[in-house]
């Protein structure tokens, strides 16, 4: 499939572009290859021009490690990680809302750090460890964070909720491992007051500050996060 067409996508001629573009949809179906497949076998075909590596603009095979599984799809290099997840890998928990890195509805964890999937190209995300909300819990077996959000009703229409879940997950992970992923990254809410203990109101707000909700669920999200962070009371 995708691999066979590899050399065709290496040219910029209009004819090749048209042909590859037309094929992209048909090839958009993702392959679940399990643990056996090594990412390098699906590496995109690369062209060198003036010392710069070039791929595309036609669809090229890509591969990611998502929720511990190796997934593949053949996509144009301009496709975002968010659209790859949602439209090609059937992982629709991350939502497309602003599509420009403001609202947080598409939040996923990339190498343990919260990231907006709409602002990363799928092709860039290869080789990184990606965790989406689907990797956390299922409706039958909720992650404690998810159970707390349900119990405190930190959701209404629910469209922003997976983004909040992943932002909160990233925050909790950093709090638990102050020396770990955070590493003084300025966006990390947990660094100052990390290593367990009750989060301050300000820390809690910072943890949620990368995400917007229109229904107004912050009042339920705050106590949910407090409960999971091991505090229980306060703002």
């Amino acid at each position, binding site marked *: 499939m995708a691999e066979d067409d590899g050399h065709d996508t290496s040219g910029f001629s209009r004819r090749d572009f048209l042909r590859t573009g037309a094929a992209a949809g048909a090839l958009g179906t993702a392959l679940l290859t399990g643990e056996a497949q090594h990412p390098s076998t699906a590496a995109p075909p690369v062209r060198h021009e003036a010392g710069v590596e070039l791929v595309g603009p036609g669809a090229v095979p890509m591969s990611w490690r998502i929720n511990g599984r190796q997934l593949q799809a053949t996509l144009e290099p301009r496709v975002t990680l968010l659209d790859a997840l949602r439209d090609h890998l059937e992982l629709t*928990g991350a939502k497309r809302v602003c599509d420009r890195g403001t609202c947080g509805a598409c939040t996923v964890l990339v190498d343990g750090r919260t990231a907006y999937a709409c602002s990363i190209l799928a092709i860039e995300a290869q080789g990184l460890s990606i965790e989406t909300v689907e990797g956390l819990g299922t409706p039958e077996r909720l992650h404690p964070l998810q159970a707390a959000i349900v119990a405190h009703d930190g959701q209404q229409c629910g469209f922003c909720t997976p983004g909040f879940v992943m932002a909160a997950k990233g925050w909790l992970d950093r709090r638990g491992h102050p020396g770990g992923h955070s590493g003084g990254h300025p966006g990390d809410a947990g660094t100052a007051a990390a290593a367990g203990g009750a989060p301050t109101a300000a820390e809690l707000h910072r943890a949620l500050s990368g*995400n917007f909700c229109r229904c107004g669920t912050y009042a339920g999200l705050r106590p949910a996060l407090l409960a999971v962070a091991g505090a229980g009371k306060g703002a």
Partner: protein
Amino acid sequence: MADYSWPEVASRRLIGKRIARLDGPAKVTGAARYTYDVHRPGMLYAKVLRCPHAHARVVKLDLSHVERMPGVKAVVVIQGEGSEIQWALDEVAAVAAVSEEQAADAVRAAAAAVRYEVLPHFVDDYQLDKAPSTKPGESQSVGDAAGELARSAVRLRRRYGLPRVAHNCLEAHGHICEWKDADHLATWSSSQAVSAAATQFGEGLGIPASNVEVHGEYMGGGFGSKFNIDSWGVVCAKLAKQAGAPVRLMLDRDAELTVAGDRPSAWADVELGALADGTLNAWISSSWGSGGLGSAGSPPIPYIFEVPNMRHRHTAVPTHTAASRAWRAPNHPQACLITMSALDDLADRLGMDPLQFFKKNLPLTGPRQRFFAEELAVADRLMDWSRRWRKRGSAQGSRGPERTGLGLSMHVWGGRGHASNCDVTVYPDGAVEARLSTQDIGTGTRTVVAIVLAETLGLPLAAVNVRIGDSQYPTSGASGGSTTVGGVSSATRRAAVDALALVLAKVAPQLGVSPDRLEAVDGQVRVKGEPSRALPWKRAAGALGVSPVTARGTNPGPGDLINSGSAGVQMAEVSVDLETGIVRMHKMVTVQECGLIVDLQTAESQVYGGMIMGISYALSEEKVLDPITGRMLNVDFDTYKLAGSGDVGELVVQMMTGPEYDRRGVVGLGEPPVVSPGAAIANAVANATGVRVPFLPLTPQRVLDALAAGPGGPAGAPASAARRS
């Protein structure tokens, strides 16, 4: 006649308790499939070519080259050559392609090939005297307003107002359309009106409504903007037909903000007067506001208080903008901000604590005054108002340049349950299912239906299934105006009572009594007063033999289960930085009644949500329309600023419960708590700073302008970013 009345408080196991929403686990795990998440085999992606001008004629539109582009499978012209476009980002044409990127390429190519004749436009609804045309709205006159105003001991004349805001649903408007054959359509629609959507698709496409099935199991927010399938619903179906494949058409964010949501503005010149003892005596006002090209109704000014001598008229200002839509509590936030700001200013001029002023004038609020009196007392306690309130501009707790202040407001809403049907089926194996084509727009509708059903049948929540969000189920009303909870809870109650009666009739012989001596409690059917004579529910249902039984419940219907008219009060505490003009929320209290509460937790969530949405429009939301281009400038989340978690302060909700409220029956709740925040917060800012900021949102610039003008200063213009340029 069967007794449909709500069970007595003492015997309720579920109704009125704090119960987590049943679809919470599906939502929090990403398992819930919204329209935007549905992926049909072979599905194509649609993009829309939109007119960049607020008013223009399409002079040339040739899309033949677009049809030949890679991946393009369908092209539909929506407004072709000769069409007059009436607002920016209105639709000209749409394409469907194999990938969304290809569809975007095609729309870019189409945009380069279309030519417009640009026509004059008008978008600045504040400039009443510059409007090319106006439309008279409602007018009212009671008593001798001018004469009594002249005789009032204390008088005030001021201008107040608030701009348009967007609905900004996080799930954009849109559909997925798939033709099952030449004249049968299936859609997945982000809709507040699943039943009505089938009819709308039928009308728009010229096929029988019965040939359309609409799915809307989960939807990502509507707030009044998703009652219609919209022009793009029909376009999506046409693209799908032309391409012979399912098509997804979801709006991009700039279109979502510009054309798919708009709460009309309201501006008003108000004169009012009171007797020396603080009795509100006279009111004269004229208001105006945007309404798209049509009219958006008239805000009910003066709000709540029936001033004995009043005169009011409203004028709609047509603008070249997409039609306004019902925005949570249509026209109430506008009327509330204008009225409660004026009353607060009058109380200040009287030298009265506004709480005392509002209490004194409660007789003017009619039959709800008793609720208001109780709620004001509760709010007073929760905010510690009476002890902490200080005269305007002399607030305690000032710290450096920061001043703290308190403000209050009150609101009402109707919220009578809409027309709804519900089928309850009991299967011989004991399975129970409710089906109704209502929708859960985030309010907890699914959970409410399950609570009523399980309560009525004496079963645990986990033992009942609720199926909603499909137009093929019994018809149910649109979710708007806080009408859903009354409609679905009463229809479900009636269906469940009747379905239970069918089961009891079958099982009665086995227990050797007449059916009227049986009750369903604790997972059993048993003889009343003789708990030992009982059958487990499954065995009781087994008496049905091989055929399930189904009962249909309707609203309206027999029995007194619902009511209309809710009352609530809100108090806000803010601090204002006099140097930067930044307003910070400290605390907000809502005391709200809504009759009998079905699920206390989701009811409270509605109130929290209304407060947060209200804080958002009070502090930062405004559709900034550029008078030069006629376009909305802030079409993304960076510049159309919603309140975040850190912006809302401490939130306190107190629902009024007890026999007096209980007896009223179920009353809707979605709208009321979003009405008062603008007024309560604006009044708190006036209390903190000593000056009135006359227009929302209370941006730092507007606060600084008001401080510069001083307490008696002119209102000036709302001075949005566009107007200053």
